[in-house]
């Protein structure tokens, strides 16, 4: 955030320092934190060896840190920047300080350019600072001459990573105090919120328009950022402009992918090289030095392939979420919202096969029998300390009270349809994708009527409707 010019800032810092006994550093000097799973590995697995990289470095070289973000081109993230190519091969005899570029059709010529990165050609990988940019001729004058001479057709990105950087800055300002710098849902404010802010690192987002096995799409995240999640502390950021929201969404996806990558990488080592595993292996008679050698060999050979799979899968799943096929699409339009339909919906809701009432309760108050049972943590196999349903983040996550008329994932019929069809990812709300779409619509019609009349057609009895309506107004 360049709210202050640097010099003014320094000046003030100098003024301030003798009084507060401390200067100030750039905003957000924090770095990404590693997940518990990474930290549970034996030290060598985390830090690696002289010529073999550990998990920390493997993650960092692909994703960087808030101040030094890395645009890992494999990821389906819009890192920002404008693609173009070198228009004419410059005279190789002199040091290259000025270059002309051409833009593919449809790409607008930027007004301002501050840096350019060579993607292909002799200078591939180099970044050059731009002194002057002439938009009319497409000529950039560089601050310092290039080492190698680029040739015509070399691919170049202007201001690469600008979206990601902008996203980081906006994220730090608007999001990080809840969601945390690393997107671990553990910012300073997070501890007071119920439900807890999303921890992106599982790569799981609850309210999506995609089917049960797909990731969240950009549209899903954009919708959440714009409209907030009613009933939680996630507010609406509707008035941020679209490019800012886009930048935030890309940064959140970036963080999610980082978390997922780290998680999976660490997981592939965890079974043999976590601290606990090493302790028990040593107990069983293995020597620690041998385990370290084994680790070294594993990272050097097997993990390389593993990393390839992990990154391919990462790129694949996040890309697929953007496709039309990933969307939940009803085969038939919404069934007319009649009393009969609602009654049918209620029957299905109470039926043994769907068993919605088991969690949501007979009258939809989110008080089904399941909510008072003690659940087992699927990972540790221990009982959770409090009764009720828990999500994959191990937070208590009780079923929605449908009487309030608050729909976290949106109140449009399609939203409710998708909730039922695809389930709520990461939570105990399962996918009902095998249910007939017509039946899903009946349930949607019933659920939408619950705040106004718990028993379809029973609105004449004011008993049921009155408290429901009162609650719905909350």
């Amino acid at each position, binding site marked *: 955030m360049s709210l202050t010019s640097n010099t003014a800032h320094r000046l003030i810092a100098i003024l301030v320092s003798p009084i507060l006994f401390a200067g100030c550093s750039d905003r957000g000097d924090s770095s990404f934190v590693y997940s518990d799973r990474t930290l549970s590995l034996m030290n060598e697995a985390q830090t690696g060896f002289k010529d073999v990289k550990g998990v920390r470095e493997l993650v960092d070289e692909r994703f960087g840190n808030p101040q030094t973000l890395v645009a890992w081109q494999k990821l389906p993230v819009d890192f920002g920047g404008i693609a173009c190519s070198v228009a004419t091969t410059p005279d190789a005899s002199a040091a290259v300080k000025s270059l002309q570029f051409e833009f593919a059709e449809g790409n607008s010529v930027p007004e301002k350019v501050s840096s350019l990165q060579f993607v292909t050609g002799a200078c591939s990988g180099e970044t050059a600072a731009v002194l002057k940019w002439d938009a009319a001729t497409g000529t950039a004058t560089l601050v310092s001459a290039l080492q190698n001479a680029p040739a015509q057709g070399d691919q170049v990105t202007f201001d690469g990573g600008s979206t990601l950087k902008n996203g980081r800055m906006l994220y730090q300002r608007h999001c990080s105090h809840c969601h945390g710098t690393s997107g671990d849902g553990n910012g300073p404010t997070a501890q007071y919120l119920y439900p807890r802010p999303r921890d992106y690192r599982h790569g799981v987002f609850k309210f999506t328009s995609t089917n049960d096995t797909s990731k969240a799409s950009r549209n899903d995240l954009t919708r959440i950022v714009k409209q907030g999640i009613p009933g939680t502390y996630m507010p609406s950021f509707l008035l941020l402009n679209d490019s800012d929201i886009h930048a935030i969404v890309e940064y959140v996806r970036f963080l999610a992918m980082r978390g997922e990558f780290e998680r999976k990488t660490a997981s592939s080592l965890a079974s043999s090289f976590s601290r606990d595993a090493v302790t028990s292996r040593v107990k069983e008679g293995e020597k620690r030095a041998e385990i370290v050698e084994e680790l070294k060999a594993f990272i050097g050979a097997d993990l390389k392939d593993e990393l390839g799979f992990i990154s391919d899968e990462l790129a694949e799943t996040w890309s697929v979420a953007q496709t039309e096929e990933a969307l939940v699409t009803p085969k038939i339009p919404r069934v007319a919202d009649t009393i009969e339909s609602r009654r049918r919906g209620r029957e299905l809701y109470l039926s043994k096969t769907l068993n919605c009432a088991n969690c949501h309760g007979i009258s939809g108050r989110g008080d089904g029998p399941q909510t008072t049972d003690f659940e087992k943590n699927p990972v540790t196999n221990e009982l959770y300390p409090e009764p009720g349903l828990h999500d994959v983040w191990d937070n208590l996550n009780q079923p929605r009270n449908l009487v309030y008329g608050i729909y976290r994932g949106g109140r449009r019929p*399609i939203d409710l349809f998708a909730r039922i069809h695809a389930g709520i990812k990461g939570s105990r709300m399962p996918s009902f994708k095998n249910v007939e779409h017509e039946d899903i619509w009946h349930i949607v019609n019933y659920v939408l009527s619950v705040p106004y009349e718990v028993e379809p057609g029973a609105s004449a009895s004011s008993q049921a409707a009155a408290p429901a309506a009162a609650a719905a107004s909350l």
Partner: protein
Amino acid sequence: MKKFWALFFYFWPIVALYFCWIAPESNWWFPGEAMSPMGVRIESLFYLILWIVAIVFIGTQAALGYALWKSAARDEGQKAWYSHGSHSLELIWTIVPAFVLVFIALYQMDVWAEYRVQSFYPDSTREEGSVAELAARQFEWRIRYPAPGKKLSDEPESDDLYWVNELHVPTGRPVKINLRTQDVQHAFFSPQLRLKQDAVPGLIIPVWFEIPEAGEYDIVCAELCGWGHYKMRAKIVAESEAAYKAYLNRLQDEQNEDGYKAAEEETN
């Protein structure tokens, strides 16, 4: 040195006045013109008080400065004026300010009555009812409109339309909204309209305003509502009657979206 101190007390009000003088052109003043008739009247009352206050400020600071200057300039050893006060002066500076203050108070009653006393609200707003419910919550503004053609009821109805942080109203006529809160106390504040009203838990407070010109106007929260108090950024979109109706219809379509994509039909 004595004179320096006397000048010191002369000097700073001049600096203060100078800053006030250059404030409007330096953009340290109202956020644009008042965009509602009520706001225009509030602003004119502000300027009335500002002039009165400016005169009093200059007068009293000048008197203070002069009193200090006078004694700084006097000869060493000259005796102070032995006086316990003046009855007539006391009377003058009691009665004159009293009149001014009572005048200010009485002069302002009308605007206040029209803004807040419901029997003074424009007739049309009472007949029409409220066009929308603006419900504050931590930390956003939830908006509920009645379905097109219906009146807003205090409690939600199944065909109500919902949106967040963007309140659409028609221009050119007084409109009333129901202000309420879903959790703690908030305050509806639109700086461009110059209007403010707290949203109190448990109460529905009708607020009316008129926006003559189409445009977008800020809504912010002006009552501490928790850690995210500053985040409650929303806007009023004032638009022509036709555009407003079209917006509500659009909102209704969007809200009934069922995601079904028949070959011949393109929803969205």
